[in-house]
């Protein structure tokens, strides 16, 4: 069984004057350990797809099966719990709670999971070291650069020990050198812990780092290329 199975997912936004078909019959399988980029022009449905896979949005038709569970069967509260324990999220920007320090931001997700203080602190420190911010644990987001903030977001995403990490344009607000180093980090984590990463982007340099590239066009999968086999 694949880690993520996307079965004939169609998403129509009908809140607008003209209904928008954001996803059109998308069929995909994503395996554990992948380092996959969803690419495509603006409006092609990347965010919509990631939201549906992440349980933040529900498909109009079709379903998503994660770890052998059809997540559309979850009630809203169960879905929150599912996200908390199974999915790590990194968003484009402003991921962090501004009043919390780096460490507290990472800890918070474990607090929601109900971990005790000692355990939370230990894991938060480890993760911040892993993302190269061991010396900035007590800084607030506003005292850190955009790249550092995204690293903390990655650390937070991993803190809950998720099955996979979804990152919607994680490098969009970064310059290319910083974007590169964030990609290095993610790739390392992928290699070292076999952590699955699915990220969207339209940055050509980021695309080139992916092991698999899924191209969307007008809400449909246009191309699906495997660049590099997982070890």
């Amino acid at each position, binding site marked *: 069984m694949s880690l993520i199975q996307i079965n004939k997912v169609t998403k129509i936004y009908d809140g607008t004057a003209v209904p928008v078909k954001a996803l059109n019959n998308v069929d995909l399988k994503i395996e554990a350990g992948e380092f996959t980029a969803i690419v495509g022009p603006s409006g092609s449905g990347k*965010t919509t797809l990631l*939201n549906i896979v*992440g349980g*933040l*949005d529900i498909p109009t038709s079709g379903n998503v099966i994660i770890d052998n569970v059809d997540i559309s069967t979850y009630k*809203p*509260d169960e879905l*929150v*719990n599912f*996200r*908390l*324990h199974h999915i790590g*999220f990194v*968003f484009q920007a*402003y*991921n962090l*709670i*501004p*009043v*919390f320090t780096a460490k*507290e931001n990472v*800890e*918070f*997700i474990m*607090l*929601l*999971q109900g971990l005790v203080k000692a355990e939370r602190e230990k894991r938060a420190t480890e993760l911040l070291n892993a993302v190269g911010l061991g010396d900035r644990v007590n800084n607030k987001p506003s005292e850190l650069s955009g790249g550092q903030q995204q690293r903390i977001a990655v650390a*937070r995403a991993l803190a*809950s020990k998720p099955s996979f990490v979804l990152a919607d344009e994680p490098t969009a607000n970064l310059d290319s050198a910083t974007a590169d180093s964030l990609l290095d980090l993610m790739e390392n984590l992928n290699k070292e812990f076999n952590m699955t990463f699915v990220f969207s982007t339209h940055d050509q340099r980021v695309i080139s780092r992916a092991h698999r590239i899924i191209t969307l066009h007008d809400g449909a999968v246009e191309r699906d290329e495997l660049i590099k086999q997982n070890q």
Partner: protein
Amino acid sequence: MLLSLAWRNIWRNKRRSLIIIAAIAVGLLCGLFASAVMFGMGESLINSTIDRDLGHIQIHTKAFEDDKLLTDTIPSVQKVLSDIKSQPNLIGASARLIIEGMISSATSSGGVRITGIIPEDEKKVTSIHNQIVAGSYFENEDANQIVLGLKLAENLGIRERSKVVLSFQGLDGTIIYGAFRVTGIFRTESTMFDRSTVFIQENDILSLLSTEPIYHEIAVRLNSVQNVDTVYANLRKKFDDLSIKSWKELAPELKLMDEMIGLQLNIFLGVILFALLFGITNTMLMSVMERIREFGVLMAVGMKRRKVFSMIILETIILSLVGGVVGMILASITIAYFGFAGINLSAFAAGLSEWGLGTILYPVLPISFYLSITVMILLTAVFSAIYPAIKAIKLKPATAIRTF
């Protein structure tokens, strides 16, 4: 951690939070101070009435209650008095002989309530002896002394040492006249009392009536209002053929006032808090609106709506309590200061004394009031938070993150 998050969130927009905290604090300061002034007035009205002539408990015959006849005297008064004197927490008991009569000076006359007393007993029960403005309060045992109020003295055009004549109906229905010399003039907070009450020694009146000692009224004074209920119950049990009344029954308007003040002030503060409610809601609403994206992220990564809801309620409670505590501290300091120094109301004294109020007002506020206000603040906070909190949890994380 949630508490610390809530606390820090409050201080994100310092100015906005400080403004609403200041609004709450000032609102409460004014509200509590005004309440304390009202309470102080009530207390002083009650205390001065008790001090002036009521005492805490009074005993009459049931017939006297209705008809106030000279013949409605308390039977076996010495036995009653000695029973009263065995009561706990007693300061004193004064037996009084009461006759409605006339007082005449050379130029004028008027109706008065003549009260025959044993000065030593009466001093323990009331505080007229402390309110003498001319002469003295039965300093010696000379016969035919009369002590009366300043207002009455003015009305009659008399001074200390002046002679007056009292007239009243005797036991057999004939009119009795007695000449008295004014040896003391008192001035209480109540001009009504000062205009209508005169004191003479009981021996003088007994000899005018040519009778054995008779009494119509026993006024009882305890060490504290708190102890009235027990003694009252004891006496009621003992003398079921007499009419025993506590100050609340003797002056039902005071009791009513006492209760009304408490109720009114709670409503008054409720209104202030209700007005603040809109300010708090507005502050929290702005704060929520600014954080839509953040709530989206929090809910996306796994914070339950219930938790987001409680966090906003918690923030509001903290914000309101900070304002509330500051307000209560400022208020208690202000009240303590004026409670000690007093507020001089002499500018309005003429009007106030008609109601039996002194010219210096001492604001007080019972502790229970601070407790009820804290509960009200908490309720206000929760009510204020509900709308912003609902707004926050209605957000769809996907939309919140996409659009903000």
